[in-house]
């Protein structure tokens, strides 16, 4: 799960990483009261998961309470504009009112999991405040990396090496190893897939401060930090994830596409292959859906309704390879599900093979459903029926 800036900064603060003074507000009036109580130079920042807040005008400075109220109202009035990854944009429910820093330099520091090295990796650059992908393109030589040996963990020399290798301004050097160490502790304590400080600011008065915070947590590790796991409810899942959650399949197991061939398979690999088969047959996929292991009637019905009610599917291709999942059970699940559902009916194409496939096919036949022989056959038939 991705954290918003103010949540990430709360973790930073706990871990001992310097962050600007701030207040979190859900209304323009709260912003006003906060600035009244804490006079000074403030920045009002929209709290959203999407990037590109600055360009979208969702970060604005404010000097008094009145200005604070006004810019907060302006920021919260419209959602973040859509982009390729979030075609719906994102509603702004709160803002962070933050100390305006007198920034002299901006650097970049992140830790993520490197799949190939199978180690946590630090990435540091003396170019901060811009997309790291952009830095990687424009200043590849500025990127310093360090792959951490998890048996040893973090030791301050790592921070020193990174600071020198990335040629950070000497003003960073004293503070950097401790900040990098705190970030590493946080990365492990919370099971983060990514922790990113961009920019890590060096102020004119010599402080090194995390001016932004991006934290992406491993959902599988959330149970270890119940306090943080609760934040989940306050975070907007994207619509597909919400639908998946509602249907009781894992939030990663459903995703919609603009086509009209609905699909469902057991196992993510097979579900992807099923999508590919439909494409190969010239069809346009309506969704990715992994029904998982136990494909009982309730689960099948939920999946059917999920697809029928939320995608442009005009046909539903069910592709089951009975390994551990037994074919007869799945067949019974499909028959029951179709009998129970109140949703509109669209044609089914069923491919059912593997363990107990004869019995499964017999059950389907009794219910008037004729399964196809292979995945490719199924894909072809589904594409035919869809068009």
């Amino acid at each position, binding site marked *: 799960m991705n954290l918003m800036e103010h949540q990430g900064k709360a973790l930073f603060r706990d871990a001992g990483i310097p962050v600007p003074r701030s207040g979190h507000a859900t209304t323009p009036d709260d912003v006003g009261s906060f600035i009244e109580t804490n006079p000074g130079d403030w920045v009002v920042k929209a709290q959203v998961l999407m990037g590109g807040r600055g360009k979208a005008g969702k970060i604005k400075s404010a000097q008094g309470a009145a200005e604070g109220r006004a810019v907060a109202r302006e920021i919260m009035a419209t959602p973040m504009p859509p982009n390729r990854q979030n075609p719906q944009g994102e509603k702004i429910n709160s803002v962070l009112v933050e100390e305006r820093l007198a920034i002299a330099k901006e650097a970049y520091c992140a830790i993520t999991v490197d799949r190939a090295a199978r180690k946590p990796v630090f990435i540091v650059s003396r170019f901060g405040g811009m997309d790291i992908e952009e830095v990687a393109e424009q200043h590849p030589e500025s990127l310093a990396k360090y792959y951490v040996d998890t048996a040893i963990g973090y030791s301050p020399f790592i921070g020193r090496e990174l600071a020198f290798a990335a040629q950070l301004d000497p003003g960073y050097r004293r503070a950097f190893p401790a900040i990098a160490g705190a970030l590493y502790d946080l*990365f492990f304590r919370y099971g983060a897939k990514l922790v990113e400080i961009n920019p890590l600011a060096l102020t004119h008065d010599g402080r090194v401060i995390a001016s932004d915070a991006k934290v992406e947590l491993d959902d599988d590790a959330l149970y270890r930090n119940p306090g943080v796991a609760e934040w989940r409810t306050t975070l907007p899942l994207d619509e597909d994830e919400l639908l998946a959650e509602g249907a009781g399949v894992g939030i990663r197991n459903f995703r919609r596409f603009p086509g009209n061939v609905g699909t469902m398979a057991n*196992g993510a690999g097979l579900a992807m*292959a099923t999508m590919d088969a439909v494409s*190969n047959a010239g069809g346009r996929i309506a969704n990715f859906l992994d029904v998982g292991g136990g494909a009982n009637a309730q689960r099948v019905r939920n999946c059917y309704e999920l697809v029928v009610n939320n995608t442009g599917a005009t046909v539903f291709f069910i592709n089951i390879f009975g390994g551990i999942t037994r074919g007869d059970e799945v067949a019974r699940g499909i028959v029951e599900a179709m009998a129970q559902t109140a949703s509109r009916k669209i044609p089914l194409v069923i491919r059912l093979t593997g363990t107990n496939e004869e019995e499964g096919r017999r059950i389907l036949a009794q219910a008037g459903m004729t399964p196809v022989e*292979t995945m490719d056959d199924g894909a072809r038939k589904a594409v035919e029926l869809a068009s």
Partner: protein
Amino acid sequence: MSIFLDKNSKVIVQGITGAEGSYHADRMHRYGTNLVGGVTPGKGGQTTAQGLPVFDTVKEAVEATGATHSCIFVPPPFAADALYEAYEAGITLAICITEGIPVHDTLKVVGTTRGMRIIGPNCPGLISPGKALVGIMPGHIFKEGGVGVLSRSGTLTYEVVDLLTRAGLGQSTCVGVGGDPIIGTTFVECLREFKNDPQTEALVVCGEIGGSDEEEAAAFIGAHLPEMPVVAFVGGRNAPPGKSLGHAGAIISGSFGTPQSKIKAFEAAGVPVAGRPSEIPAFLAREISRGKRAPQPASF
């Protein structure tokens, strides 16, 4: 021969009295796996339905049975502990079926258990058909033969193996390496073993989007297996970037892990990439009949 596992490999199950562990222990036992016992703390001294001894600790199990392989069916919060226990007890190959282990647990386990091979986590296991099965694969679709199969996912593997078996192409060993971002044994590490396995005469590599395992496998095949017939498949060609589809591992970031990058890498190594699973048997038969692969361009 075969890799990682044969009929003499002594296997225990960690979590043998749990629902999953007992069900699959029974299936492995019936398949003919040399299952020598299992572990459930507090149930030491009991005997399973198959007549296998249950031990309190892996150490006791290893001391009593000489087990070298352990199949781990314990819930995610306890999986790292189970792997450490296996390691310290001298297990040399741990097959971790558990799905949903925190990635940092796996990172730490992989970084500190040098000398123990881990298959998985989040994998269907390992089978050397006709000899032994360790994991949750449906044994009846496999057939002994000369094709080594590598895959990152479960049911897709079954789909592919089923096609191979129906086409008369038996398998030496099939390894489901697992769908998590961090796994104990990569494609390349499996390929190193297949390279030295006399039984393995051809290979199928079932990759998917995300990570760089396929690219590295392609490079290894190009460099070290010039005469081995190989066919590849890359699942998830129609996946959108930046979103994970089911598998925690199947996510594309940047230009890395795209199906295009993987397909290009295989083709550069002279490995034909099947467009769909059903093409794999025919592609492989063609590769086998053709013999030696064309030499690779020096630039690769």
